[in-house]
């Protein structure tokens, strides 16, 4: 009996020790858990913020906190439900995007130790109700800037229509289009037009197709052959419609051959191989690369250079611009590419849109200037007003934190 008593006492002592060690391993809880309704959403998101557990410090090895677990319940419910997402140490925010609009939620959070033990919970003091909003306030300033730019583009188009004189600088690359098409005609060789490798839903492809329309019109007038290999079926059908209409507009519907606009493959390097083969075999006298390009830009432009073609490129892919600049005779850089259609059309109302873009640039320059001055003042003086203005510029005007701080 005494032996049984001793064993029981030993077992109790050991279990107490075990509990004691578990209690010792439990980390301190995180604090100040706050739940906020996410702005500008359909009422499904709640943003949670908290302060780290005092044991969650990077300098303590091994770590005392390895993760945090969040729990949620509807106000009025008795039990919290664990959220599926487990957050790593040092995490201080989380967005719960599985809420229902109009319902009240309470949250709690615990820190988790390496042995799996949890801290006591930190709980939100007030219930949060995610609201369905009818305007995304995060995009308020983006909307304002968009209205300014769009408004100025429309204003200048209309003022150009009413006969106002507009001064547009010469763009060498576009001045060379006539020369390139003329050269191909004189040499009796085809013109190659590559509309990039993205599909028709990309704005660069659309811009490329608008340039194709002008080049095809010139080719039809001069009696030159134009070849358009495409890497997307939809681009092929669009390009066919465009070129056919251009030949019709130039009074040469008989010269249009739909087989000159053909599909090669969706595969990037397969497409390059196909176009390079065509270039080496048929030696086009003029090559136009207008659209979205990736690694194939230099492969195509260098091949064109090796066959002695006059080359004009235009793209809005900044990483490919140096390659085109190095290998082509003329390169339309970014906005020049988008201006090409208006410039080549020569229609005053289209040229008005270029003037409208300038207003956007002025807005950009003014913001840059103000931002630079204020950032310098903040660095030199740490002035509170300057810091507030800089924060407003960064987080509200150019960021996504709503209309006002």
């Amino acid at each position, binding site marked *: 009996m005494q032996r049984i008593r001793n064993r029981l006492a030993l077992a109790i002592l050991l279990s107490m020790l075990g509990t004691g060690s578990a209690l010792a391993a439990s980390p301190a809880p995180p604090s100040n858990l706050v739940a906020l309704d996410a702005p500008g959403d359909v009422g499904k998101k709640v943003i949670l913020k908290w302060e780290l557990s005092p044991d969650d410090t990077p300098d303590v090895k091994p770590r005392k906190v390895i993760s945090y677990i969040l729990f949620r319940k509807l106000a009025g419910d008795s039990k919290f439900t664990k959220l599926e997402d487990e957050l790593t140490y040092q995490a201080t925010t989380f967005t719960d995007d599985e809420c229902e609009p109009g319902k009240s939620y309470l949250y709690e959070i615990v820190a988790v130790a390496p042995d799996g033990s949890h801290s006591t919970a930190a709980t939100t003091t007030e219930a949060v109700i995610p609201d369905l909003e*009818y305007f995304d306030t995060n995009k308020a300033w983006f909307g304002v800037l968009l209205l300014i730019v769009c408004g100025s583009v429309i204003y200048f*188009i209309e003022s150009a229509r009413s006969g106002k004189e507009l001064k547009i600088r010469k763009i060498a690359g576009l001045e060379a289009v006539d020369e390139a098409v003329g050269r191909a005609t004189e040499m009796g060789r085809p013109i190659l037009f590559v509309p990039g490798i993205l*599909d028709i839903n990309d704005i660069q492809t659309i811009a490329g197709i608008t340039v194709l329309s002008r080049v095809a019109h010139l080719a039809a007038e001069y009696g030159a052959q134009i070849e358009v290999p495409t890497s997307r*079926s939809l681009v092929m059908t669009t390009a066919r419609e*465009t070129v056919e209409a251009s030949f019709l507009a130039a009074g040469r519907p008989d010269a249009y051959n739909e087989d000159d606009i053909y599909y090669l493959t969706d595969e990037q390097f397969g497409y390059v191989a196909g176009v390079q083969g065509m270039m080496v075999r048929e030696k086009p006298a003029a090559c136009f690369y207008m659209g979205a390009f990736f690694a194939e830009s230099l492969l195509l432009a260098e091949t064109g250079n090796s066959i002695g073609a006059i080359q004009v490129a235009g793209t809005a892919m900044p990483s490919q611009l140096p390659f085109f600049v190095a290998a082509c005779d003329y390169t339309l850089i970014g906005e020049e590419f988008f201006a090409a*259609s208006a410039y080549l059309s020569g229609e005053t*109302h289209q040229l008005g849109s270029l003037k409208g873009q300038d207003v956007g*640039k002025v807005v950009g320059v003014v913001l840059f200037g103000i931002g630079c001055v204020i950032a310098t003042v903040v660095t030199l003086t740490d002035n509170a007003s300057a810091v507030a203005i800089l924060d407003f510029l960064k987080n509200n005007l150019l960021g996504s934190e709503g209309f006002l701080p």
Partner: protein
Amino acid sequence: MKRTLPLLIASITGFVLIVANFIPKIQSWGDIVTNWFDIVAGFAFVLGAANILKLHLQKISDRRAGWGYSGVTIIAFLGMLAVGLFKVGVPPAEKYPTHSWSGYYLHEGGPFWWGFQYVFLPLAATMFAMLAFYIASAAFRAFRAKNTEAVILLVTAFIVLLGRTYAGTYLTQGIPEEYAWLRFEGITEIIMNVFNLAGNRAIMIGIGLGVVSTSLKVLLGVDRSYLGTE
């Protein structure tokens, strides 16, 4: 009508999606329209395939120069299409063992996988590898010191190239720590993060404005050249 209807569809869809971007309840409409586009593009793929067959068969029929290559293209195209579509050599998926076509078309060891892995990928890699030689020839032309601008470009490129290699680090390691920015890697950082970044941002802003302007012209019907010139 042929021009007005597409223009109307483009305008209404475009403006509705712009407005939808600012209204949380209908922000997902953009994704729905993207799905529509994928479906249309899927059907259009048939047009592309038919075009490939037509052009290459014509070339073989006319015995035009290089018609042998067209033969290779058609055999490769039809071969891959057949083994991929009928999942030749692909075992059924574990979940549906009785459905012979339930396996993954790119199942390892299958003929389609083999063609992709051992024919297509090496060919694509070969094309990509050629880029190195093209970069060398383009750089040779671009870096010729013909005028002041070209000299600046040459010197900048030389510093950046060295700053990104061990040779650059080795050559300037003797510069004391307080002047570390004068080492090749330090100067490279300044060139890339100040001058290059500033230039890039200017281009990006120009592109952004160009995109807005072009989109607006297309949506308002001011630029109809993609539907053919007037």
